[in-house]
């Protein structure tokens, strides 16, 4: 059992009368890269919210690193989220009035204590050490997304959850960001990536396709 880093057992999530996810089973092994694909309204977002501990399932169990977080309240989910999960957003989402470095420090601050050297090191890793004191508005889309990846990595999460990380990027930056994900994968990080782009989806170990809240297809590579 312990060889699974993430395990969803008969997860159900309803919004009023609408059932977004129904009897959903899903496992991820440590170091795996899983891509999630599916059309709008297929339950991808709901799944991601539950995986990121942003939302709780109506019923079912969710074991994250061996802990059942399905019944956690908001505060408990906040704690588990900052410890275990690194989030990368489609629209980058950096705090606009904080510099690149400070955005990373913020994640450290919410997690535990700040350490500027470590934050700088992770910026070096994404190749942005020279942009550390720039505000997000002074960075290109690709650079912003790299800061976002750096922020997701800073607290050494068990899983990196990325929602269309390249959706808003040009091809050049897409390649750079994707390369980071490949590197991380090679270093043994667990990655769950939601995407519309089949090419990006194929970079992972497997793809699951969602439709109407159910897995309709699993592709293993």
């Amino acid at each position, binding site marked *: 059992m312990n060889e699974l880093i993430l395990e969803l057992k008969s997860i159900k999530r309803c919004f009023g009368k609408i059932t977004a996810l129904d009897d959903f089973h899903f496992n991820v092994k440590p170091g795996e890269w899983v891509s999630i694909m599916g059309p709008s309204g297929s339950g991808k977002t709901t799944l991601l919210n539950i995986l990121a501990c942003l*939302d709780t399932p109506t019923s079912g169990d969710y074991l994250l690193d061996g802990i059942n977080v399905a019944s956690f309240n*908001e*505060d408990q989910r906040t704690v588990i989220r900052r410890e275990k999960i690194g*989030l990368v*957003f*489609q629209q980058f*989402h950096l705090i606009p009035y904080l510099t690149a470095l400070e955005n990373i*420090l913020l994640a450290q601050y919410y997690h535990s204590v700040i350490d500027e050297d470590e934050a700088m090191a992770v910026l070096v890793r994404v190749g942005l050490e020279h942009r550390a004191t720039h505000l997000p508005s002074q960075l290109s889309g690709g650079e912003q997304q790299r800061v976002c990846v750096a922020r997701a990595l800073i*607290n050494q999460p068990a899983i990196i959850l990325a929602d269309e990380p390249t959706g808003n990027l040009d091809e050049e930056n897409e390649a750079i960001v994707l390369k980071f994900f490949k590197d991380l994968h090679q270093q043994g990080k667990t990655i769950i990536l939601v995407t519309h782009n089949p090419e990006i989806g194929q970079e992972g170990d497997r793809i699951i396709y969602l439709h109407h809240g159910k897995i309709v297809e699993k592709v293993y590579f």
Partner: protein
Amino acid sequence: MFFRLLEDSVLRNRRRKVLAVVTIAIAATLMSVLAHISIDIGNKMAKELNSYETNIRILPKSEGVSLFLGGVDYNPLKGRFFLNEKDLPRIKGIFWGNNIAGFSPFLTVPVKITGYDAIPVPLVGTFFQRQIGDVDGSQSFETGIRFIKPYWTIQGAWPDDLQQNNALVGKALADALNLGVGQSLQVTPDKGAPVVLQITGILSGDDTYDHAVMVPIETVQNLAGLPDGVESIDVSAMSVPESALSRKARTHPDSLDVQEYDLWYCTSYVSSIAHQLEEAIPNALVKPVWHVAETQGAVINKIQLLMFVMTLVIFIAAGLGVATIIQTSILERSGEIALMKAIGAANHHVALLFVAEAILLGVIGGVCGYLLGMGFSQIIGFDLFTSTIAPSPIVGPVVGTYAVAISLTGTVFGLTRIRRISPTAALHGRI
């Protein structure tokens, strides 16, 4: 990191911050005015009541039921009963006689000053400084108005009690009539012959005698045809402030145990001194004179509840204002808050930011309100009591606490919104 966030939070959206500060400052100004006035008078009153030197006034018994209507005393006995000057030594003869620091009798008649006939002026007869023998004549005691009004300032010299034509003129009267030291003055009572007085000094520092002419008491007694007549006696006594024990002794004298009784008996409470004076002097009514307590204190006492309700209402109104401002501000920043939560901020992380900001706004508003209120309280104090308000240091903390409390209360109500902001919003581009 926290201070970096706070810095940005404070500096952004300045118009709204200014609005919040102004709201708090207005409330704090009101609080500051009320606190300045009330605390100043409260302090003066406490000082007066806790003082070790009390002024006691002895009046003839009939004075006790004076009936003032429209400034005229309708008491029919007025002017008929007088104290006897011969009883004065008895004041020192009471058990607490040694605690009588001084006394001075008074007798007043209205007179007209020759050349200024239109203005009737009180001619006040008193002791300035003279030796009084004991009841048994064994020891003498120096007393007079000099000893019980140490705060008087005299320009020129004190009149000599032995020179019946020596006079002291109140500053306001002297200024109005252009009188100076060394000049003479002719006064005429209603019935009787005019008297020429020699001005030895001008008195300032006492509103009561600002328009009066003061002479040795014999002068007035002769004018009024009342030898030995005394209208009132002011006594300055060294006393111990009233305590729970003295109250108990007054209400339930039998309930004191032996130790308590001894202590009470051996303690110079104002009440016991007054009581003994009343026993010693025939037909006398004795009461402590608490100037502040009976004038300004009485006014404040009546409106204190009103003031309290006012501050409460303003508190609620300003608190609601701040709550609205904070809620708008939280709503406006909900995307940012959602993002903070998504990357791991707990509710308390976010709330702390707003609370710190609220404290800062409260302090700024409080300081503004304090200063404004200090100014206004001078105007109002002068208007109400024709006296300036001494700013007491405690008002600062009181107004500060009030302002911060408004700001915090408002913010805490606004904070409920933070909990309602879901971090999922951050994931889906709604920022």
